[in-house]
């Protein structure tokens, strides 16, 4: 058994011949694919920009201060994600779990803001999926981004629960790093969406 332990320490089956971790490389491949996914959705939005034949129009409904606040939440969550990772690397598991929890809560706050935003659009501005091309392309694009954030929040909360049960430590650095890759990606996509859809008139 002792021999085995040594052999495994030398050869981690997740590390390939390039010295990189399989799982991390898989996540990068997924993110490349997801770029095309959001690229297609953003492309659809832009192709239909200004083509709606009935209102309300984007700048009748957008609440830029609120959405800026949401964007700030998401950007801040990228920082807390990095702090979680750093804590885990130094084997400060409690701090790591704490930062992961903060990250998840910032993400959750973003999602709730989006729920509030969508509700306002529907109830106060009469903008629904079926109202106009703007309604269709806006809700589908931002909705799929919101779904990505929601998935990330669930993922983060699972990590938090593992940390609380003592099943997460410095050995799991790569797992948390991969979570971080996903989380930062979703964050960066929001920067693109926020700029292209909300800020550019």
């Amino acid at each position: 058994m002792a021999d085995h332990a040594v052999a495994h320490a030398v050869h981690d089956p997740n590390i390939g011949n390039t010295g990189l971790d399989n799982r991390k490389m898989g996540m990068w491949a997924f993110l490349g694919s997801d770029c095309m996914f959001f690229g297609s959705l953003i492309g659809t939005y832009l192709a239909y920009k200004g083509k709606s034949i009935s209102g309300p129009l984007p700048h009748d409904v957008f609440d830029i201060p609120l959405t800026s606040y949401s964007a700030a939440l998401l950007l801040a969550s990228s920082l807390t994600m990095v702090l979680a990772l750093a804590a885990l690397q130094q084997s400060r598991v409690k701090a790591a779990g704490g930062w992961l929890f903060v990250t998840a809560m910032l993400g959750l706050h973003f999602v709730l803001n989006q729920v509030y935003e969508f509700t306002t659009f529907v109830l106060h501005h009469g903008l629904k999926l079926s109202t106009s091309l703007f309604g269709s392309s806006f809700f589908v694009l931002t909705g799929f981004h919101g779904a990505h954030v929601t998935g990330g929040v669930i993922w983060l909360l699972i990590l938090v629960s593992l940390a609380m049960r003592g099943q997460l430590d410095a050995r799991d650095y790569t797992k948390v790093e991969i979570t971080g890759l996903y989380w930062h990606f979703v964050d960066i996509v929001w920067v693109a969406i926020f700029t292209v859809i909300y800020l550019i008139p």
Partner: protein
Amino acid sequence: MATQAAFMPGTKVETLTFWGTVASWLTTVDHKRIGILYGTSAFIFFLVGGIEALIMRLQLARPDNTLVGAERFNELFTMHGTTMIFLAVMPLSAAFFNYMIPLLIGARDVAFPRLNALSYWIFLSGALLLNSSWLFGMAPDGGWFGYANLTTTQFSPRHTIDFWMLGLQILGISSMLAGFNFLVTIINMRAPGMTLMRMPVFVWMSFVTQFLLVLAFPAITVALILLMFDRFFGTLFYAPAAGGDPLLWQHLFWIFGHPEVYILILPAMGIVSEVLPTFARKPLFGAPVVIYSGIMIGFFGFGVWSHHMFSVGMGPVADAAFSVSTMLIAVPTGVKILNWIGTLWGGSIRFRTPLYFALGFIAMFTMGGLSGVMHASPPVDLQQTDSYFVVAHFHYVLFGGSIFGLFGGIYYWWPKISGKMLDERLGLWHFWLMLLGFNMTFFPQHYLGLIGMPRRIYTYAGDLGWNFWNMVSTIGAFLIAVSLLFFIANVFRSLRSGAVAGNDPWDARTLEWSIPSPPPVYNFARVPQVQDRDDFWLAKHGDGHGGAPRPKAAPVTAAEIAAIHMPPTSYWPIVLAIALTVMVSGLLISTYQIIIGGLATLVLMYKFAMELHRPASGHGH
């Protein structure tokens, strides 16, 4: 050696009951078994798609025929195209990716064995969902590229399009998961010494294919999501009345659809690049150039999609740009053909069945490529589009190309996979009948198209001059069917009483032939050290410039084999695939099913992810 024999396949290490065997296949994470599952399923769907084609050919054999009506004919050509592309050629390629890539790169498995099993079960679920539409009398009828706005609820109110849309969406998930897996496998799991340029060309072409899979499928995923929202949630993406543009579908679809063409052909090109050097007994001529050409085909493949849309009137600038890029992509393709011929030139050729299929591939694919260059010119394309000329063209590249190449691969690697030889005589019957039948079926369709026969018509009047060649085409199609009977007979004969293949029946060049046939579960008892592209050939025969063959390695000891650690089986992939299908098919049945299936999918994803996190003692990682 006695100890190693105990691990050789065929020698049962443990005896399983019938249900034990079934369970071992349902839970397997072994890339070789998953490859066999992919190959078997794909071949069955190939037969289903073939039967659909035969019914269409029967209907078109005579003018004013009434075998099937217009609606059934629409279903047949839609399901034939969808089945052959997504359920036959792609999974047959996937079967080779699964079985051969780890063997060719000297690995013991893929990077993510359980994800690999998940890809297969999701593929099978999607395929069954799509084909279950026949049972409900709701087979998709919008054509394999399902142009908007024919597919919106206004024009297709029944669930026909939904089966197609949801089936494709599930199949897309499977393809992308497999794409991530093989990208990582090829980059990260190569044996020591196997630099990128030492990778066998089949692995290279597969590598390019994985890039196309992960980058092209998101476009159709989005196109299908928009269609789903239009059909179920009242969005207006493809609704011209609200300002929506049906061309949005065409662009998104073909941004996926053209790379898809290369997803279908590149693996076959890779197989041919392995078969030719083996049977010409010399290295692939200009192998690096073949590799660069494959990369260029993959790259340009993303820049030519609008040549499928010349007839919609995109304007002279777009037409010219896509025309030029399309002609450009013929260059690397032509380079490859030259290199394949160069490989044969001066070789000491042994004519065996795999080589016949590879030669058939080169000839047929070249003809399909030539008519493809004709379409690259918009004025010519406008004459040919939506006519039987186009049908002839894409069957020459996808049947004459992909299918011939894939059959070449089956004949080539069958001895490795089964441990038995296929019969040469039956193989040649299969080849010649298929070549003859194929050309009888599709060559006259060039002519039919040029004299004006449109594709997708279910019947025609008798005075148009189309009667004779349609009858020839139908007879040809049945010859193809007969040729496949020879193949099936050959397979069963081989399994029952085929000659034992041995490790290296072809005196071949790559690593998979250095291990027993079929390979043991761990593939390589010792991880090989690779020094060249044709490493195994050099080890056997020296480098041909005076370098001596390498000395034989010492026999593998039982201790070495005992130290090999293979991943355990898992139930989660198949269960997760079922839950996903329950969720997606809920759209056709009830909201509760979506919710239950969705929650089950989430829980099972968690179980899947946690299975190897801090496992109970016994598994070191």
